[in-house]
């Protein structure tokens, strides 16, 4: 078993002022060359988890305890200068809305030059590197892109620019926070294909955040399922899709539109809404919506246990699904 590229241990994220828990004691690893999908609804804490790796938590939110170990350092306690040197360089991130994530009054070329500048790589080769980066992500007329502004491009193109920006220094880990959610379905597919291709070429690891289990189907090796600030299930792609153990994961799968099934079957939604993480610290957060819930579930928090198929946090596992 090789050493993990990045190891998150007992990470807890809270609001700064009133210490409301947003992410509750989660742990996971990403190995070199591996792609991990983090799936959960909004409010599950998946985005905050991703942001905390790079130290980009918004104002008013702090990582209160735990470790994020990368390359023999704990990123949570490392110096700001060290973290800065990693951003965009060894660990990169792409974001959900390419329109707001790019500086609207700065030329696209310059925005990429900045990555090089931040890591003291701005030399005579820089323009060629940026040009190549644009070409690499499939932007037609890269020389025009160099001097264009974000609003002159479509959503899909902007996302490609973001990917170019994230990949230009060949990071070891790419964190992607729902980069396809704001795009049309056909463009989504293109972007997913692009990212897979990049991954294949460079062998980088990936942490892919999404609310849509279907998106990660052809993309990742392992899946982490989050709910109300906790990890409720972890498993390989195959295990999760064929034998989910946690009722929530099961529900997620059941709610995916299946292309091979006749359209007459209705989509199954899980009734109810996810609770706020800080309100459910002493019980199973999913219990109000769970068909299998018993008294135990309302009074104690189940921990992640290894089952026959996956690691799930539930007192009643599903076993083999039909």
């Amino acid at each position, binding site marked *: 078993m090789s050493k993990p590229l990045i190891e998150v241990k007992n990470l807890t994220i809270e609001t700064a002022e009133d210490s409301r828990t947003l992410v509750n004691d989660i742990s996971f690893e990403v190995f070199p060359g591996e792609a991990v999908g983090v799936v959960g609804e909004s409010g599950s804490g998946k985005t905050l988890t991703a942001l905390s790796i*790079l130290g*980009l938590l*918004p*104002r008013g939110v702090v990582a209160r305890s735990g470790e994020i170990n990368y390359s023999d350092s704990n990123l949570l306690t490392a110096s700001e200068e060290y973290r*800065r*040197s*990693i*951003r*965009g*360089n060894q660990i*990169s*991130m792409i*974001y959900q*809305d390419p329109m*707001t*994530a*790019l*500086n*609207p*009054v*700065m030329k696209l070329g310059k925005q990429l030059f*900045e*990555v090089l*500048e*931040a*890591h003291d790589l701005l030399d005579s080769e820089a323009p060629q590197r940026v040009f190549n980066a644009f070409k690499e992500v499939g932007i037609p007329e890269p020389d025009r892109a160099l001097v264009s*502004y974000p*609003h002159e491009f479509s959503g899909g193109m902007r996302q490609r620019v*973001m990917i170019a*920006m994230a990949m230009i220094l060949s990071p070891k880990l790419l964190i992607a926070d729902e980069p396809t959610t704001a795009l049309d379905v056909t463009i989504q597919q293109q972007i997913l294909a692009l990212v897979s291709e990049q991954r294949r070429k460079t062998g980088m690891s990936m942490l892919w955040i999404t609310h849509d289990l279907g998106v990660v189907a052809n993309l990742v090796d392992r899946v982490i399922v989050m709910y109300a600030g906790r990890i409720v299930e972890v498993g390989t792609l195959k295990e999760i899709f064929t034998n989910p153990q946690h009722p929530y994961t099961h529900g997620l799968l059941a709610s995916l539109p299946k292309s091979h099934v006749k359209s007459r079957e209705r989509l199954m939604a899980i009734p109810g809404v996810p609770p706020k993480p800080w309100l459910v610290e002493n019980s199973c957060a999913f219990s109000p919506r769970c068909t299998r819930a018993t008294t135990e579930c309302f009074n104690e928090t189940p921990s992640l246990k290894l089952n026959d198929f996956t690691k799930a946090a539930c007192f009643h596992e599903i076993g083999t699904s039909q």
Partner: protein
Amino acid sequence: MRLAKTSGIAARLLSVLITLFGISVFIFIVLRVIPGDTITGSLGIETGVLTPEQIDDLKRYYGIDKPLLLQYFSWITSFLSGDLGFAYSTGVSVLTLTGSSLPVTIELALFGTISGVIMGIAIGMFSAKKPGSARDFFGQLFGLLALAIPGFVLSTAIVTIMANKFGYFPNGYEYMTPWEDLWMNLQQMLFPSIVLGIAVAAPVMRTTRSALLETVDKDFIRTAFGKGLKSRTVQFRHVLRNSLIPIVTMTGIQFGYLLGGAVIVEKIFALPGMGRQILDAINKREYATVQSSVMIFAILFVTINLVTDIIYRRIDPRIK
């Protein structure tokens, strides 16, 4: 594309011209219609100085004996052809007067605006760095006081402290243009520029602070940090640069405002600018001077607003 842009500018110019027309009518009404016979009344006061022929000349110039509408037209046509009337107590044409007073006011307004903008942006940035903190409180307190303490109070305080207590008051000497005596000129501009600067700094600081706070929460700032840029680079190149638009707009407005709002400061610090020209003319009941000077001022103000408008369209590439 080209065509649309030109017609956009043309439309705005037309709008500006209509506004200027409205302004001239407004000025005319305010200064002529309301008091009625005051002009003849004041002419009466000065009768001792003028010959009957000169009085008739003036009456004709003002068009007093004609109906109101014609009075307006005779004024506006004279104005547009460069005849701004003259101050009958000295016989000097308003055009000449303005020629020497306007540069003074412009110089003052420039210094005031520049110092105010620098102060305002600096304090705004200082405040915005930690909103809700002690430094923010003091920054906002400054903004509030700068706004609330009237310019004439500040000026009087400066005169009291500097002139009466320390005996340093360059404005007590005859005014020097920058070409006559640059050093003296700068000293004479010092205090009034500070007073005006403080007045300008207040709204600029507010605008800067709120623009910065709004920008800082935007997604692309997170992206900028995520690239590994240093905090200082992000603050200036991304946060400030994107906050510039409202700041530039506010600066333009302030500059235009200073041109006329400097009246009080010009009086206290004995600067022979446009504001003082108007004030003196009002006190001496020189209506021609007041009317033409105010009109000139309004034209300037409207022009500055137009220029500001054009500038911020250039800064923001999103507006085409």
